[in-house]
């Protein structure tokens, strides 16, 4: 059973392009923004593709972000910056296994498909294992993939609210905005997450409840 999300036409990413322009002009704050927004997501991207070898994933994510920086001038803004970095990360993983004269681990991930890369870059996935543990892991992974592809401020408020358990008021204080503004941001973040996740993971109805119920 495999579902694909419909592909979205490529669009230019003015925010990402502006960030890259600022980095190329030597702005230190832009480097920090770029690094903070991408490194953990790149690590998770590599982790599932190298058999959860944490040391290798760390080395690969370092190599990928450095290589991305070296190639910044080739970024044209047709895909989100994070997706562009992920494509570089794929090359690093392939290169690593080529050096070892080994084939890459056979990891079939929905977001690696060409069609799927079109928009989140596009996402889809296949539920190959009906067991709940596998389902739980897959749901968790897809949630993290979705989160990693969100704009950084959406990412932060969702994690603060639903993982760290902060109240809307505390989120507002952390962002130095009013409770109303924090609530509005949270709503938009949830909507964006919902769109991204739905395009990625078309789960059987009730699957989340079923898995959650066992925990």
């Amino acid at each position, binding site marked *: 059973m495999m579902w694909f999300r419909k592909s979205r036409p490529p669009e230019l990413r003015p925010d990402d392009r502006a960030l890259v322009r600022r980095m190329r002009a030597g702005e230190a704050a832009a480097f920090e923004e770029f690094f903070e927004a991408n490194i953990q997501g790149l690590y998770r991207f590599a982790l599932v593709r190298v058999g959860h070898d944490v040391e290798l994933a760390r080395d690969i994510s370092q190599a990928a*972000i450095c290589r991305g920086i070296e190639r910044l001038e080739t970024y044209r803004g047709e895909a989100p910056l994070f997706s562009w970095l992920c494509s570089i990360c794929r090359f690093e993983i392939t290169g690593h296994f080529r050096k070892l004269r080994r084939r890459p681990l056979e990891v079939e991930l929905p977001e690696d498909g060409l069609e799927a890369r079109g928009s989140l870059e596009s996402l889809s996935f296949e539920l190959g294992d009906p067991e709940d543990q596998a389902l739980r892991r897959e749901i968790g992974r897809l949630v993290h993939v979705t989160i990693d592809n969100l704009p950084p401020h959406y990412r932060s408020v969702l994690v603060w609210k639903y993982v760290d358990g902060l109240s809307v008021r505390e989120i507002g204080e952390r962002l130095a905005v009013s409770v109303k503004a924090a609530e509005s941001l949270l709503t938009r973040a949830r909507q964006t997450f919902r769109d991204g996740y739905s395009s990625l993971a078309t789960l059987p109805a009730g699957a989340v409840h079923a898995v959650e119920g066992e925990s």
Partner: protein
Amino acid sequence: MSGELETRATSEALGEDEVARLLRLAGPPPTLDQAEVAAIRAAARDAWHRQLARRSARRRQIWAGGALAASLLVALGLAFRASERADPPGPPVARLELHAGALSVQSAAGTYELSDELGAGSVLVTGADGRAALRMANATSVRLDAGSRVRLVSSSALALESGALYLDTGPHTPSGAAAGRRSELAVATPLGEVTHLGTQFEVRLVPATGTTSEALRVRVREGEVRVATDREIHDVGAGSELRLSAAGELGRGAVAPHDEAWRWAIEAAPVPAIEGQTLASFLDWAAREMGVRWRVAGSLPAATPQAIVLHGSVSDLSPEAALEVVLTGSGLRSLRSGDELQISPAGR
């Protein structure tokens, strides 16, 4: 398939509660710890600085090529000024410690008065009789020989456009090399990029002559240096020299740490404050600057240099003159023999 489609959790089916459940179910994602992030950040920042330095050097190379067409000089000059203005003024990345002869500092705003603090993007130009010593924010000592032009890209990246630089990043330790310590300062040139492990080395752009093309020459006094071009990587160890021409010719040679070739760098070295320092620590510094080892000789007890505490200042002197003044004031003298500096009581 239609049945499957009906079971999809679509955007509409994922309500607020469902989003919350999903996020809680997924829990915190696997993450790199702080130390790992810090190490990767340092590597990424290195890569970024190197990239900025390369870009700066490339821009300069384009400018130099354009200068061959005299009729376009004015137009290119205007283009160059425009590209200069594109660089925003940066934060201080180095401090001017010492200079002699002609030295100017240029920025996007034009040439400005010398000051202790030098910002990112500044370009230092020494005249035919000029030399200068800088201290980078990461504590590396950088010296400019006469007739040099260097851009301070950041606190860890320089772009050498002409002339020569001498860098001293502090004593080289095998443990640092073994641990794969990354370069803290990269020098970009039109012919390649030079990075290092803790070391003393010189990077010089040798101008083209009637019979030879422009060349990058790297001499290593201590530690180890890596030279990377678009096509290849060369490692250069202590006591050796590498010459890489624009035509692609590669030459290697030897240059001892105490060779006269290092004289300009010794003369350009700022002398540190000695107040309250022991003679032994001053001798450590002076010997390293001169590329030699020191030892007590004659009837001088081995513990004497450690027991003598210095007072006063010799900051206005060259390292060799400072050594003579300090030893004389301590009732001692030095005798140079090859790569050894023998310290003995005066009058013997």
